């Protein structure tokens, strides 16, 4: 069965495009989206948002709407698009359940600082507060999980509100902004002129870092003997990956990239030591533990990175660069805080450092670099290729088979996500899209669809778990409807694997409610019922073939990898432990050399 693009029903003749003039609130929303350069938005219509959807079909405009199957999918697709492109993602839903279904992606976007504008329908203003059909206090529900929220009570406010919403979403520390529009406001008319500027006296993000602080940071780096760059997702939000690369080249010290920063600095770069924290490498965690200067760049000392906070980087002074002043000294005291945009701070810091750099100071750091290099050589990520198929093996094959392709990876949340972070090599920014802060199972499928829609020519692979996949698999219908050929690799171990791992290690092997069964559903038949390609691999020999077939098909595709359910993610910092205290399986170095 071949996928086709559905033709949108347009019962009426399109109304010619009008950029200004008298129009309905609904059309004003569409004109605002156009003015913001929005290409795609995702959503589902419903009662309270009907005027907007009516205008969508009725007026001529340039914004593409993608009909999803669940509003959560719309939100995560907008996130996938935003994370892949760096632009603002837009999604829509109706009042009540439409809005509450958007809570999870909005909370996810809030914790991972993803720019979103979320438009929801609301019951007419005269019914607000009356417990009307499909009424929920949407702005109230979203208040703690948005950067800002609006309930529009006058149609004339729509252009200003939309302008502000996009401005707030994309500037400073990016985040989701909600615009709740009652039905009567969407039907009311206004004289539309899209403003050129915003007037927000209470919102003025700091732009450039303080020069004295930059100088102090440069001096601290020059004097440090064991410095480490601790790089977070803020580098990607700031589009500062080039400035980071120049800075890292100048200082020549190990670069730790958090889960959110994977790809912000090339994984294959000799200075990159990758993932720290709960399932990070020993060398990254040891480097953070022994460092005397933590050069923090757009990271936020999350508990999954630091482990027990009091024991984290115990001997280190901290430089903390961030756009958000509230992150400074929130979890870890910053000795040298620099608030501002990384695109401005990093070049200034590089310049200040180069003026202080001497041969002695370069030499003093060389020993440290060698030490980290030795740890990396002696204690790599590893696994035993015995028994059933291992997820790590599948990751290695994806990595190697697609090494020459331009691949955007998305993931769900759990064991497969950690293995993806450990084993995949990501060389370019915004090519690894995962739910970091909120840890949203089900993120992978819609995020992959959103990313693929942003870049139809790239290969998009969703590394997913079976538990995660089942949470948002209805979006396969969206993928097939719009012919979105992202590959959904289900690392199917039949369990909620990460929870099972905790139960095994910390709860006396009491596997409470974590068994899913790996044959339920039959993922191949499921994919076929959606009109997608369904493939399966149960042994190492079958892995290459299914990956190659999936990539070659350029069709929406689900691959059922039947993997070992006993396999655990190592190394591991148990929750609440110091990050230097990792548990691991016993390794015999002879065994590694023999390459069994």
């Amino acid at each position, binding site marked *: 069965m071949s996928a086709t693009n559905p033709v949108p029903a347009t019962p009426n003749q399109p109304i010619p495009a009008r950029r200004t003039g008298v129009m309905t609130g609904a059309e004003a929303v569409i004109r605002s989206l156009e003015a913001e350069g929005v290409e795609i938005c995702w959503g589902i219509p419903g009662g309270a948002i009907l005027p907007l959807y009516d205008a969508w079909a009725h007026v001529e405009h340039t914004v593409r709407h993608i009909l999803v199957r669940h509003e959560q999918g719309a939100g995560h697709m907008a996130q996938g698009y935003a994370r892949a492109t760096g632009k603002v993602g837009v999604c829509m839903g109706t009042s009540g359940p439409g809005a509450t279904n958007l809570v999870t992606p909005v909370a996810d976007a809030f914790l991972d600082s993803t720019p979103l504008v979320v438009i929801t329908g609301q019951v007419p203003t005269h019914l607000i507060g009356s417990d009307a059909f499909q009424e929920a206090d949407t*702005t*109230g529900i979203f208040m703690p999980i948005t950067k800002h929220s609006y309930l529009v*009570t006058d149609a004339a406010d729509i252009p200003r509100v939309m302008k502000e919403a996009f401005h*707030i979403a994309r500037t400073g520390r990016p985040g989701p902004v909600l615009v709740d529009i009652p039905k009567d406001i969407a039907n009311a008319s206004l004289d539309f002129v899209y403003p050129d500027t915003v007037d927000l*006296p*209470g919102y003025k993000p700091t732009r450039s870092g303080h020069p004295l602080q930059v100088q102090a940071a440069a001096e601290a780096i020059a004097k440090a003997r064991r410095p480490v760059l601790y790089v977070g997702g803020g580098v990607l939000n700031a589009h500062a990956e080039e400035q980071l690369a120049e800075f890292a080249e100048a200082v020549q010290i190990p670069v730790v990239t958090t889960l959110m920063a994977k790809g912000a600095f090339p994984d294959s770069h000799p200075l990159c030591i990758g993932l720290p924290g709960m399932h990070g490498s020993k060398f990254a965690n040891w480097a953070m533990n022994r460092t005397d200067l933590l050069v923090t760049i757009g990271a936020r000392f999350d508990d999954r990175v630091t482990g027990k906070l009091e024991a984290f980087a115990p001997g280190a002074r901290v430089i903390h660069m961030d756009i958000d*002043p*509230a992150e*400074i000294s929130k979890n870890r005291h910053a000795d040298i805080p620099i608030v501002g945009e990384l695109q401005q701070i990093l070049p200034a810091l590089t310049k200040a450092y180069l003026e202080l750099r001497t041969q002695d100071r370069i030499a003093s750091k060389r020993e440290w670099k060698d030490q980290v290099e030795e740890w990396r050589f002696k204690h790599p990520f590893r696994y035993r290729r015995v028994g059933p198929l291992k997820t790590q093996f599948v990751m290695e094959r994806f990595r190697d088979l697609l090494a020459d392709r331009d691949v955007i990876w998305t993931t769900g949340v759990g064991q497969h996500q950690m293995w993806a972070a450990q084993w995949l090599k990501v060389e370019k920014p915004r090519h690894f899209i995962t739910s970091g802060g909120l840890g949203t199972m089900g993120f992978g499928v819609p995020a992959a669809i959103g990313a693929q829609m942003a870049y139809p020519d790239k290969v998009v692979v969703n590394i997913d778990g079976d538990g995660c996949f089942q949470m948002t698999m209805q979006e396969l219908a969206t993928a097939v409807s719009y012919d979105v050929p992202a590959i959904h690799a289900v690392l199917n171990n039949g369990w909620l694997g990460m929870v099972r791992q905790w139960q095994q290690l910390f709860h006396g092997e009491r596997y409470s409610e974590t068994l899913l069964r790996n044959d339920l559903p039959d993922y191949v038949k499921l994919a076929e019922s959606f009109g997608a390609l369904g493939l399966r691999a149960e042994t190492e020999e079958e892995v290459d073939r299914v990956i190659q077939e999936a990539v070659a098909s350029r069709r929406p595709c689900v691959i059922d990898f039947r993997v070992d359910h006993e396999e655990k993610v190592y190394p591991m910092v148990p929750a609440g432990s110091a990050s230097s205290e990792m548990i691991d399986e016993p390794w015999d170095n002879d065994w590694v050399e023999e390459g069994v």
Partner: protein
Amino acid sequence: MQHTLSVLVENSPGVLARVAGLFSRRGFNIESLAVGPTEQEDRSRITLRVDASQHSIDQVIKQLYKLINVLKVNEMTADDAIERELMIVRVAAQPNERADLIRLAEVFSARVTDVGPTSLMFECVEHPDKLHAFEEILKPYGIKELVRTGRVAMRKSVPERTRGARMRVLA
């Protein structure tokens, strides 16, 4: 430790909910809260009394600044600000007790605002500590009803040169 925060906000819908919600979400207790208009029509001032460590109060102030409708946050201390609160209290008072109570009230600059057959009502605008003292004095007579507005505060006028040292303003 107790802190008084004076938060200047835009008069926009839901602004009080945003500020109050931030405190509950970040796990801070609000001891008292007062909201009212200011000299500018489109601005309101929220005065909050919060129990938090200095590290936490710094974090609260930074989080408050992240709210789009928050324009300025000042932390006030007893030294640099005038703090006042209004209390209205109804006290049981038999006719033979009235004179005693009215004399006590004078000490606290409280005014009699209502006289009933067996009760007296006082209003008192004072520093919250003094209101507390007045309340303690009235307790033996039997407090029937009591209401307080929550404290409001305003910075004393001090020379520009020393203001910076006396007042902590995080921008």
